[in-house]
């Protein structure tokens, strides 16, 4: 029994990690007012890039920056389209997802069915990992988990307690007024889209070189989309995203726990998506003012418009 509980917590943390990384990235991006529906695609690109680099160099630690660079590069497309070219952000994000999924499939084709010789090792945090029960579950984990939590807390601090955080949030609330205070709205939006992309790519890297050690086409399995829903669930607050992501991590793990009970595996596979709908429904009963959504999320901003 003890082992089941420990392994459940452990797997929950693992399953929640990519969600947390991607959600944090999307929160930063949406806080600046840009809706990025390309998370799924960027994640896939991150996953395949990290995998290829790790495979060829044998160094998982090289896979991570490579994935970040790739995430940066593909997100640039969305930044240019939505900020400079004032394109519809919904369509631009969808295009990015298609491109990302396609490109990752093409890049990864030679690597299908070839597992990594070395994947990223789990790291035990000294002393803490020796604690009974939670030590093993929480403190002997993939470095991605620690990274995700640190990044989420940093993002929270950055958004809420720094000058640039105020500028970013103002950009999403009222770009015109923000521009008027001498803030470069376009620059902020570019930066946030790109940082968001890097975070999504990290989420992908976790999937391919830490969570599993092989590349499968479509291995992101809708996690990018769930991250977008989690952004709403977290009320655009990275600290709440930690909580939200691990709840969903738990739902992913639930599938494996319930399978032995004879419940249809396909029904269990539906659970994350079904839960997303249920949670969004529950959130909708909240007072919209307390929902905290950036006021101009997804709206095109034209500089100097009369």
């Amino acid at each position, binding site marked *: 029994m003890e082992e089941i509980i420990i392994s459940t917590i452990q797997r929950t943390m693992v399953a929640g990690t990519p969600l947390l990384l991607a959600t944090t990235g999307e929160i930063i991006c949406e806080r600046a007012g840009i809706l990025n529906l390309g998370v799924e695609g960027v994640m896939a690109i991150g996953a395949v890039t990290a995998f290829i680099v790790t495979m060829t160099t044998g160094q998982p630690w090289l896979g991570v920056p490579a994935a970040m660079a790739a995430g940066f590069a593909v997100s640039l497309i969305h930044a240019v389209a939505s900020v400079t070219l004032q394109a519809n952000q919904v369509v631009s994000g969808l295009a990015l997802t298609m491109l990302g999924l396609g490109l990752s499939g093409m890049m990864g084709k030679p690597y299908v069915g070839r597992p990594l010789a070395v994947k990223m090792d789990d790291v035990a945090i000294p002393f803490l990992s020796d604690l009974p029960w939670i030590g093993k579950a929480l403190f002997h984990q993939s470095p991605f988990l620690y990274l995700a939590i640190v990044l989420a807390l940093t993002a929270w601090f950055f958004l809420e*307690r*720094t*000058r*640039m955080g*105020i*500028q970013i*949030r*103002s950009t999403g*609330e*009222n770009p*015109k*007024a*923000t*521009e*008027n*205070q*001498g*803030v470069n709205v376009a620059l902020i939006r570019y930066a946030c889209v790109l940082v968001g992309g890097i975070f999504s790519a990290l989420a992908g890297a976790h999937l391919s070189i830490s969570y599993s050690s092989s590349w499968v086409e479509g291995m992101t399995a809708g996690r990018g989309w769930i991250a977008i829903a989690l952004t709403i669930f977290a009320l655009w607050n990275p600290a709440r995203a930690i909580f939200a992501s691990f709840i969903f991590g738990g739902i992913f793990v639930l599938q494996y726990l319930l399978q032995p009970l004879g419940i249809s595996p396909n029904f269990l596979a539906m659970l994350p998506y079904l839960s997303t709908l249920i949670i969004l429904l529950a959130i909708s009963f909240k007072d919209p*003012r307390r929902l*905290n959504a950036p*006021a101009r999320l997804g709206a095109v901003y034209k500089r*100097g418009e*009369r």
Partner: protein
Amino acid sequence: MIKIQRLEMKDICKSFQGIHANKDINVEVNSGEILGLLGENGAGKTTLMNILYGIYQPDSGSILINGKPVRIANPLESINLGIGMVHQHFMLIQNHSVIENIALGYKDTPFLFPRKILRQKIKSFSSQFDFQIDLDQKVWQLSAGEQQRVEIIKTLLNGADLLILDEPTSVLTAREIKELIDILRRMKADGHSVIFISHKLNEIMEICDHVTVLRKGRIVGGAQTKDTDKLGLARMMVGKDVALTMDREKLPKGDRVLSVRNIHVTGDKGVAAVKNVSFELYKNEIFGVAGVAGNGQRELAEAITGIRPIDSGKVRINGRDITNLSPRQIYDYGISHVPEERIRFGIAPGLFLYDNAILKQHHLKKFSKWYFLNYERIKLHTKSIITEFRVATHAINNQIRNLSGGNIQKLILGREISEQPQLLVASHPTYGLDVGATRFLRRHLLELCRQGSAVLLFSEDLDEIFELCDRVAVIFAGEFMGILDTDDERINDIGMMMAGSKRMNSDPVEAGLTT
């Protein structure tokens, strides 16, 4: 200490889509001076100031500070030069707290913990100018006057020596206007200079040292305020002697059209916006609702036309209860509506003119057969509105976004009036129009009324109210302070009523209703 001793704008020209917004403008303001920029809506005052603030670039002309030419490419450069601007529509982040808004605008905001560190600085600063504001409140919770003070604090913190105020009094109550004037006098004594934009003669005469008058993008006059009078300025502003009244025949009181009983309406902020309002409106009558902007006018208009739910109370048209019916049902009972924010509510910008000409009427029999729209008739109808209301456009299959604001407004008014409604609810119908168009539209309203309609007119412009209305109600903080005939002698106290410090009523029956 004061960086801007003299500011000059020389030969400034700026055009939008081939239309001159500013043409050869020259203005000058010195330290310790208040310059008034007077002109009608659309005269080019705001454009000129947006150029000074770096939001627009002039097509030609130059800006000189202390005699030295400067280039102002964006608001940040303007702030660094010592220029501050308070826009007519406040540039505040509504969902953020006061302190966050100040931190956003302040150029020396520290990177870490901006709120904590700024707090002390603002405290000492606001006591100097006697600003009383809770720094942790969200901006949307503040009154218009408080929001304006936040804007002024922002500019002063950034070391603004020259303060531009764009129509600062349009949203203020009489008391708040007095407070604003006090602040401006204090700043003047400190050596600051101020450019004060307004279309209200009284304020210009009271506050400014000298005044420059703009009309249709050009300077048409200027004077020291002590050397001129209101009539002279008014003449310059409109370019001809203004007949301040319009012939209005007294029509017999007709049947009751609209009856509003004790309605309560909640505003966007979740607080009561309209409180216990009752009135009646008769055939052949224009009933005005006067008041400072943001005192519940918009919510009242939206509640009557069905856009906003009514919490309690009854609205009846011709005796029929229409409380909380859908906007379409209410339209079908004969209530037309010219909304306050026309561009936002009144049109679908990407659709053609003729699509927009039937926005609320497409379901009517005359425009549709069964489920199909009858475009032949719709186009004829559009053409007749365009001719009758002088909408300037080259074609009716033109996207309406290509039209100027004034022309869009004429189309909307034409659309709402053309169906000969029982009741027209019109919010600021002439706002932003030039004098000619304004007179034209007012005559249309009188004509509509003569033909047997009733008009409920919301306006901040008292001249308009007196010119058109038979009776006027004054709204303050969502309540009617009283309903008076426009020829009632006590009407002189309307200013007190608008500030919420006096209640009055014309006849005892309605007095009984409102209390």
